[in-house]
């Protein structure tokens, strides 16, 4: 089943109907497992139980970057391959990515207050994630300014691709600049630098967040397709109304 098979919106809706209940179930299971493992994870010798904010903060951060990556691939789908549902995927992913970025910034800020002594600091990692959040809001604003969906999709696609440069900047900001934020500990060439007792709950929560993203994303895509159908029906009704030329 290639991606092009889902170019037909009706086919995609049928697919979403079938897949969504399973995805919801899997997501619930993954969160249950992740939260159970989080509860059982050891306290940090310095931070105590506060370190467990990490199990929310790190997966949110990963998902915020993943969201923009999904949008960038969808943007290529719109501009290069002209896939009919690519701009639906992009529009559905934008609020999700923004929400995960906001969650990342908030949990990080609340974690920073007891650990670093400040809610905010203008270092490279925090600044670049804040800029990512502003870019998410900008793309959402662009979606809501252009009325016609496919024109809006093309404009948003260009903006998404221009902003994609921020993702590698965020990833390597802790290596390129002197930052207060912890340097790369999981995704690096020499392998994770975290003990398995903490790495396993972290990865489980990451999988749970990823499944949550996919569930919400497919549901949002379904909603957007239905929304566009409503719009078309309303346009057709307005066109057929008595007293209308045509």
């Amino acid at each position: 089943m290639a991606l092009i098979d889902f170019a037909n919106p009706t086919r995609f809706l049928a697919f979403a109907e079938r897949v969504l209940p399973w995805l919801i179930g899997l997501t619930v299971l993954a969160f249950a497992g992740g939260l159970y493992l989080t509860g059982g994870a050891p306290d940090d010798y310095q931070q105590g139980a506060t370190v467990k904010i990490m199990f929310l903060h790190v997966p949110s951060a990963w998902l915020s970057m993943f969201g923009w990556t999904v949008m960038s691939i969808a943007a290529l789908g719109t501009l290069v391959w002209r896939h009919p549902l690519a701009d639906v995927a992009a529009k559905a992913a934008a609020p999700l990515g923004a929400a995960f970025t906001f969650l990342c910034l908030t949990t990080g800020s609340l974690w920073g207050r007891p650990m670093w002594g400040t809610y905010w600091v203008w270092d490279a990692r925090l600044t670049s994630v804040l800029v990512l959040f502003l870019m998410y809001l900008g793309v959402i604003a662009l979606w809501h300014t252009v009325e016609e969906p496919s024109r809006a999709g093309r404009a948003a696609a260009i903006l998404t691709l221009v902003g994609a440069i921020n993702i590698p900047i965020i990833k390597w900001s802790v290596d390129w600049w002197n930052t207060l934020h912890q340097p790369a500990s999981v995704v690096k060439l020499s392998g994770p630098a975290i003990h398995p007792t903490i790495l396993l709950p972290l990865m489980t929560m990451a999988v749970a967040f990823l499944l949550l993203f996919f569930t919400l994303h497919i549901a949002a895509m379904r909603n957007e397709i239905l929304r566009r159908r409503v719009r078309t029906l309303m346009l057709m009704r307005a066109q057929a109304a008595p007293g209308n030329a045509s």
Partner: protein
Amino acid sequence: MRALAALFVRDLRLAVRVGGGGGIGVLFFLIVVVLMPFAIGPDLALLARIGPAILWLGALLASLLTLDRLFAADHEDGSLDLILMGGTPLELAVAAKALAHWLTTGLPLVIVVPLLGLFMNLDGRASAAVALTLLVGTPALTFIGVIGASLSVALRRGGLLLAVLILPLTVPVLIFGVSASNAAIIGPLPFGTPFTILCALSLVSLVIGIFAAAAALRHGME
């Protein structure tokens, strides 16, 4: 080539005429920089300390607010459609328009900096440093701005959308511009380091900006 030169000269002429909007950017820059001491207070030492930052922010906002002039007038009278349908590559046409825009909007900002440096209690060396960084950095602001201008050209109620889209992308230019200015004034960083990165940002934004803007114009015009 002659078509590009003609487009470039046309844009220059239109900018300096009445209604062209070339000088209004300088006026706005002047007003913003004059407003700052009213808000911050007359402490000269403090003003000298944050002077480069205020001048850079004023230049950024002045560049931003004159950006819709780039395509809006042409869109309204149909010249943009003619440019799109013409034989010259759209990317080069956008580059020609953006260059003319910078010469009439960005360059005057740079020329005015020594005067405004007086208001910020900057000495000659500091003003020169800020002027030099602005000279190299305002092209970056123009070419990043051309992306937003092309995305919002066909929108009737564009409003602040252009600013919202462009400002996050201009953050690196602002950071390195102020960093270079401060490096020349107080150190300890050598001036060359942030300055060359600023030059690199201008060159990269030249390339990315015109391709993104051309794509946006092609897809956005119906």
